[in-house]
C-alpha cells in the first residue's frame, strides 16, 4: 500500500454568491501534493489563493469537487468534523500571526492541544515547550506577544502549528508583515522543518520568497496556470549567512 498524498483535489470549485453575479473564485482545480513537499502558491491579488487555502485548511467547503486530505475525504464534512480535522491534521500560520494577546508564548503554543478530543496528548505543557524549542524560542516561553518582535511572534505561531504534529502546515503570506531579513529567517525555519519531513504549503506574491520552496503553483482567475518544480531552489540559511557578512562589511 502506497502512502497517500497529503493533498489531492479533483475539480475543486468555489463560487461566492455575491448578489446578482456570482464570483467564481476557484474553477475545477486539480492539485496533488505529496508528503514532504514544500509548495509556494503564487498569483495576482484576487486569483483565488486564499480561497484555496481556506478550503485546503477545512475552514471552508468547496461548492463542487472532491478533496482528500491525508487519504481522508473531507469535502462534505460538517462544522464539528472540520474543526476536528483542523485540530489533528493542519497547522495554520497567518500573515498577522494571530496569537492571543495577554497569553504567554507557551500557552499560545499549547492551545491546539487543549482542543484535541482524542485525549492523546497528556503533558500538553511539555509538548508546547518542545515545539517552542524546535523554533528556537525556549527562552521566550513566558513572554507575551507584545514583548516579542514580529519574527519571534511568527516563530511562536509556527510552533503552535507544529505542536500537534500535523500532516500539513498551511501558511497564507507568512512573511507579509515581516522585513526582508526576518522573512528569510522564517523561510529558513520552514526549510529546516521541511527537511525534517513536514509538508508545507505557503502563499506568497514575492518571487524571492517563492524560490525557497521546491515547487511553485501559480494561479490566475481561479485556475492553476503553472505548476512546476523550482529549478534553482535557494537555501535560506546560506542567504542568511551571506546577508550577515554583507551587514558586517557594511558596518566596517
Amino acid at each position: 500500500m502506497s502512502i497517500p498524498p497529503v493533498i489531492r483535489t479533483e475539480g475543486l470549485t468555489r463560487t461566492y454568491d455575491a448578489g446578482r453575479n456570482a464570483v467564481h473564485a476557484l474553477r475545477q482545480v486539480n492539485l496533488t501534493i505529496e508528503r514532504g513537499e514544500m509548495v509556494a502558491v503564487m498569483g495576482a491579488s484576487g486569483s483565488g489563493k486564499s480561497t484555496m487555502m481556506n478550503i485546503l485548511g477545512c475552514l471552508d467547503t468547496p461548492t463542487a469537487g472532491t478533496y482528500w486530505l491525508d487519504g481522508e475525504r473531507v469535502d462534505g464534512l460538517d462544522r464539528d468534523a472540520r474543526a476536528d480535522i483542523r485540530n489533528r491534521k493542519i497547522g495554520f500560520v497567518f500573515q498577522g500571526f494571530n496569537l492571543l494577546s495577554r497569553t504567554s508564548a507557551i500557552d499560545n503554543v499549547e492551545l491546539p492541544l487543549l482542543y484535541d478530543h482524542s485525549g492523546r496528548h497528556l503533558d500538553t505543557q511539555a509538548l508546547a515547550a518542545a515545539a517552542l524549542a524546535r523554533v528556537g524560542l525556549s527562552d521566550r516561553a513566558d513572554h507575551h506577544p507584545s514583548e516579542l518582535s514580529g519574527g519571534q511572534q511568527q516563530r511562536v505561531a509556527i510552533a503552535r502549528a507544529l505542536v500537534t504534529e500535523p500532516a500539513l502546515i498551511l501558511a497564507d503570506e507568512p512573511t507579509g508583515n515581516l522585513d526582508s531579513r526576518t522573512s528569510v529567517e522564517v523561510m529558513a525555519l520552514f526549510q529546516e522543518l521541511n527537511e525534517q519531513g513536514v509538508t508545507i504549503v505557503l502563499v506568497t506574491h514575492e518571487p524571492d520568497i517563492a524560490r525557497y520552496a521546491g515547487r511553485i503553483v501559480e494561479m490566475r482567475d481561479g485556475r492553476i496556470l503553472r505548476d512546476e518544480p523550482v529549478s534553482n531552489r535557494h537555501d535560506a540559511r546560506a542567504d542568511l549567512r551571506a546577508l550577515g557578512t554583507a551587514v558586517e562589511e557594511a558596518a566596517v
Partner: protein
Amino acid sequence: MKRSTLFKVAIESILKNKLRTLLTMLGIVIGVGAVIVMVAVGQGARSQIAAQIASLGTNMLVITPGSSAQGGVSQGAATFNRLTISDVEKLMREGTTASLVSPVVVTRTQAIGGGTNWRTSVNGVSVDFQTIRAWPVAEGGFFTDQDVRTSRKVAVLGSTVANNLYPGEDAVGQMIQLRDVPFEIIGVLTTKGQTASGTDQDDVVIIPYTTAQTKLSGHTFISQIVVGTQSSSEIPAATDEIRAIMRESHRLAPADADDFTVRNQSDLTAAATGTTDVMSTLLASIAAISLLVGGIGIMNIMLVSVTERTREIGIRMSLGARGRDVLTQFLVESVVMSLVGGVIGILIGVAGAAILGKTMGWHTEVSTQAVMIAVAFSAAVGIFFGFHPARKASGLDPIQALRHE
C-alpha cells in the same frame, strides 16, 4: 475539550481582562447586594412586629365594648360601658375552652412613692392576667386569688414605674399611694417593651380588680376583658363560646347584633404582618428589578466582548475549537462572573444590612433563604443572559472571524 481545561481557559480569560470582568460583575454585585439588604430590612421589620405581638400573649382573646360593625365606637348612652363585672364573673363560671379570664379595670392616676410621683395607668386585673399575658415578675411575686377575694391593697409595678419611682433601689416591700390609698409593692414585672403602636407596656401598675373597684375613688371602667386558652388551636372554639356567654349575659335577642367585639392575637398578627409582607414584597421586587438590570448589563458586556473577541474566537476555531467549545467557554465565563458577583454581592449585602442595623437602629435579618435565592438567581442570570452572546460567538464563521478588525 476536557471539562477541567475548559474551566481553566474560561477562568484565565476572566482574569486576563480585569476591567471587563469588573464591569460585567458590577450589575450582579449591586443587584444581589440590594436583594440581601432589602430582604433583610423587610424580614427584620416583620419578625420585630411578630415578636412584639407575641409579647402580648399568643393564646389571648380580647373582648372590647361596642360592635365591630360600628367600628367599635360607642353609640350614645345606651351602649356606654357595656362590659360589667357580671360579664366577667359569668365568663369565669361558664367558660371551658376560655379557661383564663381577667377584666382590665383602668384608672389613670398619679402614683406617689419613693419621694416622687409618676402619672401612670392603674390596671385592676385577676390572677389569670399574668398567665394570659405571659408576664413573669422580675422581683417579688404576683398577688393571689386570696388577695383578689379580700381586695388587698397590693400592687405589682411595671418596670418603667419602678425605675421612675425607685431608681436603683429595690421597690419590693415599699409603699406607694394611688388616689391617696396606700398600697404595698409586692413585685416588679419584667420589661416587655413597646407595642407595635409605640405604647410603653411597662408604664403600668397592676392591682387586684376587686381592689380597683372598691378601694379606689373616682371613675373606673372595664376597658377590656382578656381571655386565655390552653393552646392557639382552641381560639376559634373559645371565640364562639365567649360570644354565646356574652350574648346571654347582655340578654341579646337572636336578631340583635353583638354589642361587643372579640379579637384574637392571630388577627392582629395577620393584620400587622400583612402590612410588612406588602413592604417586604415591594422591597424584594425593587431588588429583583435591579438584579434583572444587572443581568442585562452582563448580556450587554458579553455581547460587546463577543464582538471585541471575534478574532480570538476565529483563532480558537482555526485551531480546532468546535462551536460547542466556544459556547461553553463563554457560558462558563458568564456563569462564573455572575456567581462571583453574587458572592461579592452577598458579602456587601450582609455588611450593608449590618451597617444599616447599626446606624439606623433598624432590626435587620439576613435570611439564608434570601442568600440561597440570590446565588441561584445570579447563576440563572449568568446562564440566561450569557447564552445569547455565547451562541452568537459559537456560530461565527471562522474565516470571517479571523479577518475581523
